[in-house]
């Protein structure tokens, strides 16, 4: 059985956020919900600004900060789930059975990484609100009778079940009151593909593979590079490894 891990090499990240958008498009996340995020070093109070830095001009190095479900080996979210909706597979993926989740949100309290999202409203309504916020002024906005495919929403339209459990479905087709999070693209992994964020990464900063295979790229990298995991002291044994950024440019030296 493989032991999947993800490596994020912050030296290679360009901060382009292609991973965020590709994930949202593929998983049908409504605008404003992201299962993985990339932020530059935050400035207090500014959320999702597309450029940001700290320090004093011109010494303003930026560090990309990635967040994604760590698929922990010792996942607190699994322990607290009262109905067994969140579970861990042998290969390490931590998944949610959307049909079992009762929306108690204990898992969100338990997760130290803040990677889970609760659907407070039907995602389609979130999308409608977002479209309203675009302030479209088109007087001939397509009516229902003119839509080529009335039920169309973006996102992978095919559901995926893991031994009967519904673990992947376009979030826009889910109803409110449940918790969602990154699945590491379970339906792709089971076909031998990589998670979509890894596939699209411009800088090839995200690397995915089997740590039990000594010849895998992840094994090779972790054997020679210094990598860290987030909040290791909590004992969650996260499976996402970060290679810290060290290659900032020199400035006026």
């Amino acid at each position, binding site marked *: 059985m493989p032991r999947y891990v993800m490596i994020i090499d912050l030296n*290679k990240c*360009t*901060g*382009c*956020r*292609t991973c*965020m*958008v590709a994930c*949202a*498009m593929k998983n049908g996340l409504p*605008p*404003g919900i992201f299962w993985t995020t990339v932020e*530059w070093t935050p*400035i207090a*109070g*500014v*959320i*999702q*600004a*597309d*450029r*940001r*830095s*700290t*320090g*004093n*001009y*011109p010494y*303003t*190095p*930026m560090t*990309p900060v990635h967040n994604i479900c760590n698929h922990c080996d010792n996942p607190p979210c699994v322990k607290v789930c009262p109905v067994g909706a969140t579970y861990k597979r042998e290969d390490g993926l931590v998944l949610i059975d959307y049909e079992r989740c009762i929306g108690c949100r204990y898992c969100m309290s338990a997760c130290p990484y803040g990677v889970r999202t609760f659907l407070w409203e039907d995602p389609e309504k979130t*999308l409608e609100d*977002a*479209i309203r*916020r*675009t*302030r*479209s*002024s*088109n*007087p*001939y*906005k*397509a009516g229902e009778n*003119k839509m*080529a495919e009335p039920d169309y929403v973006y996102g992978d339209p095919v559901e995926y079940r893991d031994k009967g459990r519904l673990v992947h479905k376009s979030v826009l087709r889910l109803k409110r009151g449940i918790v969602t999070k990154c699945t590491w693209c379970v339906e792709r992994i089971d076909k031998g593909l990589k998670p979509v964020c890894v596939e699209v990464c*411009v*800088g*090839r900063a995200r690397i995915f593979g089997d740590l039990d295979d000594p010849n895998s790229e992840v094994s090779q990298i972790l054997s020679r590079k210094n990598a860290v995991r987030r909040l290791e002291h909590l004992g969650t044994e996260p499976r996402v490894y970060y290679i810290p950024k060290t*290659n*900032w*440019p*020199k*400035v*006026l*030296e």
Partner: protein
Amino acid sequence: MRKAAELRGSSEGFLETDWDTALDCASKALAYIMRRYGPSSIAFTIQVPGTGYMNKGALMRLASLFGWSSMHAYPLNGDLPTFWAPTFGVQSEELETLEYLNSRLILIFGSNFTVTRTMSSRMLILARERGAKIIVVDMNYASVSNIADEFIPINPATDAALALGIVHILIRDKLYNEEFIKTFTDMPLLVRLDTMKRLRAEEVKELSSKAKELKAKIPAYRDLFVSIDKNGRLIIIDPRRLDLIDPVTNERYDPVLEGEYEVELVDGKRIKVKPVFQLLKELVFRDYTPDKVAKIISPKPEWVSKYVNIIERLARDIATLKPVAIIYGASNWQWYNGDLKGRALSLLVALTGNIGRPGSGISTYAGVYKIRWPMWSWWGYDKPLTMIRGTPSMRRPKWLNWSVFLNYEYRQSEEWRKYRSTEVPWPDQGVRALLIQWWNPFDQHNKALILTKKAKRDHPEPLDFIMTTEIQWTTSVEYSDIVLPAAAWFEKYELVSTPIHPYLSITQPAHDPLFDSMPEIWIFKEIAVRTSKIISEEWSDDEVKRILGLSKDELVKMAQMYYPDPDLQRQEDEARRSGRWSLSLARELANKASEKAIEILLEDGRNVTWAEGLNVNLTEGITLEELKKRPVRIKLPTPGNRQIPFWSQINLRVPFPNASFPHPISATGRFVKSGRIEFYKDEDVFIDLGETLPVHKDPFEESLYKWFPEDKGRYMFVYLTENSLYRVHSTHSNNAMMLALQDYQPKIYMNPETADRLGLKTWDYVEVYNRFGRVRGYLITDPSVHPNVIIFVQGWWRRYTDGTHYNSPNYPWIKPTEIIYFTPGVWEVNTKWNNTLVNIRKIES
């Protein structure tokens, strides 16, 4: 369709109608304008043809039929780097990004590559991993700096000074490649000190008769210049070859680069001359010492000594780490003196021989402008009787420059009258109609709100008719009289390429077009047919002949042959007559016509004049069937078909320039008459402006301060409209996901120290303004921004900025050097987005 032009600027007053009514109405309006004002008074652009050779060509074909005015999108968008034509004689060239892996030093001057060339930034990361050194020179710590080895902050618009400071060191320490500059550049050419013109061979007593003989053997667009060898012998420089062979004796010579000499002219007059290199040396030794340059470029006085060291080090890096690739960013050349910066930066690669070799050169990446070969078989229009592709009789559109169109005031000025070449077109009766498709000019190109004023008839040159072909309801739609729904990318066929990657690819219909939308090829075919019918019915024979240069019969026949396979058009006509016509049949036939048009386009690439005496087959073996399966590399005339600018010149010794399509070599060869890379320009305007050699100048002295002297000292900040990571200019501005990534809020970035001084803080609602316009947004203080710069991330439609407009503080400046020639898309007035000064204030409510 809009009921009344008075309602322009809103979504009010539109009437939803069917295709027949809309097209008939549009055709009537267009025929009326042509009859009253002439065809050239209808202006349009095809916006970046690389993204659609076929459908964009469809509009060019329609315009060719009637003789409408095409506004080349390259200068319109500010994408034309105006140093290329005077220096290399080309539109522009770029190293493909795969070549970065061969570079050892990559210098990025004002290009936020990770945002504007997102996918290609991987090549920078790989190049760095392979040991290339990446240096970013920019006024702001742009995000590309994060993947660089070094970030060098400099003051806005001072890159030319930095480059000339480096040139100072290269010359002082003899770090230049002498053989290269003697062979490929104008450095050995002699310049007359009395006129400051280059010395022509026919002026020189001892060369005059030989020069006359040689003149008959060279193309008319070339000239014979003179150098002097180490023995004091005057040599004619042969513009037909790039080597050091005397065309008179056929012997090798070694020209001098330095010194002052005396030459006797035909009339017996003795004049003093100096090689270009000597003049350059004197210039940089006098004005661009490291000390002087450091003071110009350093954002703070206390850092000046650091910059002196940096200039010295950069010169050594450039001279020793080969190959060197320079990336010169669009935001950097979109200034009044952007040409001077480009000419100065080109010196760095020319002096060190970093041109025409793998991983080297200077590249400008902006716009998908590039026509990979002439495409007139589809874009032009043969008369039905000749039907010979590419014949001189072929009808082609007229041309117009966007800034010339917008800048009414400049056209009234003495400067315009003095320097304007008769080549620079302006329709006899002005521009009366604007056709908009594939762009959103009322947001993206509305400098100083001039376009709004024209649409609202609050301008000396109002617009009578505005028609938009669109895939979405944009701001420009709201200013239009007729809006035609076009099919989107994956609802139609299209042939696509980019300048940065030498590949051809096609888009294919993945599903039917939504609603009633149609591929542009069908829309423009219908307009061709319907307008011709109206003209043939309503105009007299004489009028048609006088206005369009065709007989009625010819016009109607040509419109019937709009589709590349006229049989498809006949099938559609027949279906109409028999009542079998439907939208789906029209689409099916339009798709077949599109495929045929793509095949014709590919055919055009099979025999192309690449450079003087060098013909190539760029589409050898490339077929539509193959393109349906995968993108295919264009067969460039280089080893491995690699895109290495000027490989042919440096390795095959073919004279400069490469052809800039669709123009023949004669149209662009005249810009570098010596057949070499030219740094010394001697047209009168360059002499008048003191720009015979590249120099550094304050960009506002000859623009804002010259025309509005009272503004000197009034506005404190350079206004930069930075490209957004989340959209292509203003496209996708209304996309919910893209908006969510930006909190739905337009933002204005400023250095926190500057903001503190002005009493402003993050999240204040502010207005950026100057005499021309204003824009509103939320202030974010960010230390990566230069203390004297304000950044607005572009693309926001007006409805997101309280009706204010981010391009309204900009003005369509025209530099007189840009109007001494006119070759569309090559030598033209370029839009100067960043040549703008503003102030900022807090909005209380």
